[in-house]
């Protein structure tokens, strides 16, 4: 009769993981719309492909493991991964590139470690980095905003018709990296789309991500610690190493905060609860680390944008951060942290 009695508590609040995931997806909507404004159906194709591939791969793996498929899929986390990856990949990426990215994300990033909640690395960023290092050319070819016709785009994505040189367009960060002679003004000036701070599509997209992020913060999907720490660190670093001029000086704080994937990273990526540190203190350190690394790699490293690498690098540190930021439990004299050779 009472074979396995259920323990207290007998009541819980209304929060649910599915709900959380749903909110995150919802919060990406502004950025998706802005992105679509600039790149047409590009983002939509990316996201759609990602979701289709991601769900099928997850279903396949779960059934390989003889686990209930519907149970694994219903949390919706794989869709979050897919949406975020889809938004991070350059628009009009070939279908096979998307497949490789999402495949690595879901298989190596998530399921080899046991599925939801157990992956040490951020799956979306893992997938991104895999294709970035494997196909750097394709991954650094962003189309110039509003230049690619839908039909050409579809042909490129699915049939592999070659990329027209005219489409290709260096992002601000690329330019910062490769051209050490522009003034800051020129850096922005190059981009004909009038914007708020200046004129690049990336500001608008970043602003949209910021909006979505604030919504999530308001809904208490995550705490402020990681995003604030990351933006703070990035701003501080760029302030310290900025000499006021243009691309020779690694860029101003505003430049760094609103270019590349900064806001996507701050509010959607490093807030991934699974792969970041757990305590508030730990998350703060995690965010700081990401911010500093982003700047180091952007300014002095070999890759134009650094969110993905920085996140992976800090994912790497997350267990260690957790290890060293354990809170002091009630009634314990001090927190059990770090290296105690004496015990065992």
């Amino acid at each position: 009769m009472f074979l396995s009695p259920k323990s207290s508590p007998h009541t819980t609040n209304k929060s649910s993981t599915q709900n959380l995931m749903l909110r995150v997806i919802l919060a990406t909507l502004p950025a998706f719309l802005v992105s679509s404004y600039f790149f047409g159906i590009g983002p939509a194709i990316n996201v759609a492909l990602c979701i289709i591939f991601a769900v099928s791969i997850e279903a396949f793996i779960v059934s390989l493991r003889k686990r209930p498929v519907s149970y694994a899929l219903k949390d919706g986390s794989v869709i979050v991964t897919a949406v975020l990856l889809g938004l991070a990949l350059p628009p009009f990426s070939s279908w096979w590139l998307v497949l490789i990215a999402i495949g690595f994300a879901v298989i190596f990033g998530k399921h080899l470690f046991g599925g939801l909640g157990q992956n040490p690395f951020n799956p979306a960023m893992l997938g991104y980095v895999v294709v970035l290092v494997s196909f750097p050319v394709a991954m650094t070819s962003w189309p110039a905003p509003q230049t690619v016709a839908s039909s050409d785009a579809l042909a490129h994505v699915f049939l592999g018709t070659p990329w027209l040189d005219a489409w290709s367009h260096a992002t601000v960060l690329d330019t910062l990296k490769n051209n050490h002679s522009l003034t800051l003004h020129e850096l922005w000036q190059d981009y004909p789309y009038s914007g708020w701070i200046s004129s690049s599509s990336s500001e608008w997209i970043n602003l949209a991500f910021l909006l979505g992020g604030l919504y999530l913060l308001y809904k208490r999907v995550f705490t402020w610690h990681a995003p604030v720490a990351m933006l703070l660190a990035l701003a501080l670093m760029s302030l310290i190493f900025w000499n006021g001029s243009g691309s020779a000086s690694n860029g101003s704080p505003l430049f760094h905060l609103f270019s590349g994937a900064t806001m996507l990273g701050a509010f959607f990526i490093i807030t991934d609860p699974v792969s970041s540190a757990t305590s508030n203190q730990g998350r703060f350190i995690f965010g700081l680390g990401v911010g500093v690394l982003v700047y180091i790699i952007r300014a002095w490293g070999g890759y134009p944008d650094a969110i993905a690498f920085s996140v992976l690098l800090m994912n790497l540190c997350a267990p260690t951060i957790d290890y060293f930021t354990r809170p002091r439990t009630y009634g314990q004299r001090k927190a059990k942290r770090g290296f105690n050779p004496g015990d065992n």
Partner: protein
Amino acid sequence: MTIQDMQRSISKNALILGVFAALTVALVAVIQQGTAEPIREAQRLAKMAALAEILPTKSYDNSLLDMQITLDDPLLGNRAPTPAYIATLAGEPTAIILQATAPDGYNGAIELLIGIMADGRLSGVRVLQHKETPGLGDKIELSKSDWITSFTGKSLDNPRAERWTVKKERGDFDQFAGATITPRAVVKAVQRALQYFDANQANLFAQRLTASAQEANQ
């Protein structure tokens, strides 16, 4: 533990290890003796092959390796003094082979071997060593792409100085898709080497005498 104990242990262990050392080192030394010559030969051959590749065979009749001088100049970008080889045809200098380093490759320094004819034209360029990304920057290797041969025949004023860069920066040289940094670095390094040669040509060819003297001394 007694003193004798210790003495016995010390002498025993010392002896055994000493014997081992003698035996193993003897083996290695013998092999070394046997291979010393082939190794020198292999190194020589490898170098010869590399040098021969960038000079037309008909342009010289000396043994390049024997006509070696040592150069050190900031324009060459080398970290340490490097050898250079002078080719002569019937005693007259016809070309020089320099080593130069492009310090600003994508992943670090790229070491180049540059052959320059007496008239200032490039007879050929090869990459000795680099750390560029496989699949991207490594197209500067001849085995991956023949981009590097595009230098042959170019000289300091062909193309003009401002066109000594990649096409993207309105220069004459191709870049690889997605990898501008590597080719640009190589182009710049070659250009600097040409400038160096231009400035020091007389001096360099004069050194050949000292070089051969050194050779004789050795």
